[in-house]
């Protein structure tokens, strides 16, 4: 009976990974949602979610944790600041990735793989190593700070420090996420038909017009795809502000980490995590809409 075999193979194939991810992805996410309505335990962690008094079962849940989010503007402010950092990172990534992606897309076919590999290579070195590199570069004794301060002192300005600032955080965020912008952008630019530009030139367009009226609009799906890949991980990061940001440069990820590890206020940590999850989901759905294949077929060879 082919039908039975089909059903059996369906179960055998999808059940093990499905069950695993249900247990180690879906269940923890739901537990976090539930935790956001619970009281925090006396020694951190969570208090029981119900109590039984005189045989009476009572739920012990609260909206307090969610109210706390809106009570002071500290957390919303920090969320806005993190969004601003992630946005700045994304924009700088677009500006830096564009020329490189375009250069690779217009290089000879046999050079492209090597040029792409050179983009991916630093991205495969350990995340912490890449942050550490910037700790060296930004260090107050480092050559970069010294060189910058020769300039600032000759202009009669105060000496500057790069370490432990929002600028340091954003530069490192760009460094860590740049390949995520270059790769989808390249994948898009590579499909462009250069004869479109030739035609535009024949019709009298200058270089800027060629770029702005043809290449740029055609590349938007690539930019949207890259923007999601840069923006979402940038938003939740905690190691970069932790190591390079000091007290001025902290982001929402640092507070989440703090709630779960140091102050052990899990309910509130869950609230902050869920806000971040909601933002992520909205962005992913938005990107899926913007980057839908409808806009991608134009300009294909």
């Amino acid at each position, binding site marked *: 009976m082919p039908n039975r*075999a089909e059903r059996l193979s*369906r179960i055998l*194939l*999808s059940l*093990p*990974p*499905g069950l*695993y*991810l*249900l247990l*180690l*992805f*879906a269940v*923890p*996410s739901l*537990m*976090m949602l539930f*935790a956001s309505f619970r009281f925090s335990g006396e020694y951190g962690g969570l208090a029981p979610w119900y109590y039984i008094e005189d045989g009476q079962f009572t739920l012990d849940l609260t909206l307090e944790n969610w109210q706390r989010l809106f009570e002071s503007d500290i957390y919303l402010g920090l969320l806005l600041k993190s969004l601003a950092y992630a946005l700045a990172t994304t924009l700088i990534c677009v500006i*830096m*990735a564009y*020329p*490189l992606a*375009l*250069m690779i897309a*217009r290089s000879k076919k046999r050079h492209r793989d090597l040029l792409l590999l050179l983009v*991916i*290579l630093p991205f*495969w*070195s*350990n995340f*912490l*190593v*890449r942050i*550490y*590199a910037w*700790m*060296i*570069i930004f*260090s107050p*004794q*480092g*050559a970069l700070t010294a060189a910058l301060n020769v300039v600032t002192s000759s202009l009669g300005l105060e000496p500057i420090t790069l370490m432990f600032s929002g600028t340091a955080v954003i530069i490192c965020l760009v*460094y860590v996420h*740049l390949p995520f912008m270059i*790769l989808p952008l390249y*994948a898009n630019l590579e499909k462009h038909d*250069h004869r479109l*530009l*030739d035609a535009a*030139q024949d019709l009298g367009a200058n270089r800027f017009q060629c770029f702005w009226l043809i290449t740029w609009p055609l590349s938007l799906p690539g930019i949207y795809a890259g923007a999601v890949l840069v923006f979402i*991980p940038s*938003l939740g*990061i905690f190691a970069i502000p932790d190591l390079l940001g000091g007290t001025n440069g902290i982001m929402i*990820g640092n507070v989440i980490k703090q709630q*779960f*590890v140091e102050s052990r206020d899990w309910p509130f940590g*869950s609230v902050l*995590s869920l806000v*971040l999850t909601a933002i*992520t989901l909205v962005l992913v759905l938005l990107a899926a809409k913007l980057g839908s294949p409808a806009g991608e077929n134009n300009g294909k060879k």
Partner: protein
Amino acid sequence: MARSNAYPSKFLIAAGGMVYLFLYIPLAVVVLFSFNDSKLNAEWVGFTWKWYDKLFQNGDILHAAANSLIIAVISALLATILGTLAGLAIYRFRQKWLSALVLGPIAMPDILIGVSLLLMFILFNVTLGMTSIILAHVSFCIGFVALAVQSRLSGMDQSLVEAARDLGATPFQAFRLITLPLLKPGIIAGGMMAFTLSIDDFVITFFTAGVGSSTLPLEIYSMVKIAVTPEVNAVSTLLMLVTLVLITALSRISPTVLRN
């Protein structure tokens, strides 16, 4: 007028070159100072191997490196099996729910996966240690293996399987003798990707590790939190070397997987 649109302009080459410098100078600085005979990562004093010597006498780092390796091997093996099953299931039966479960951990920021797993492990009384780290790593690696397997499947000529069936092969024989061998490069590439992701992971490990189960990234984190020392440069340089070897191997096996 010269037809120049098919080639990069001088401006593009210059700007692109500068971006390459931005990508490589920081790593070059790390490597360079790992050979510098000075405790400060500030100016070049002279060549030395001493940071590497110190590294190989540092028991904590060696222990952490061994942990990282064990975790990565086991996680990669489990994720390869589960991810291959998931890839096949999604490709053959178009199961949306499985696809969402597989892609979820890839789309979510690491910190969210880390804290939710921490929450669950503690509430279910799972002792934090090697086991909890491996369980966590497998859950975010499955998706990458599944994607590699799916992309290989969609490039496969289905008529080969049909031909085998016409010639009397059972569905299982067709799978074992046709599909599986053709799938092998995808499975291997996915497995190696899982290995690299696991050995590199910091954030999720940070939340799911317990006492005595420190991995190399965790060890580097606690070292740089205290002070910047050339020993970190040395371990970083060695890590880069290992990754370089892995990437070269991976690009030999399946050049397209790296780009996805």
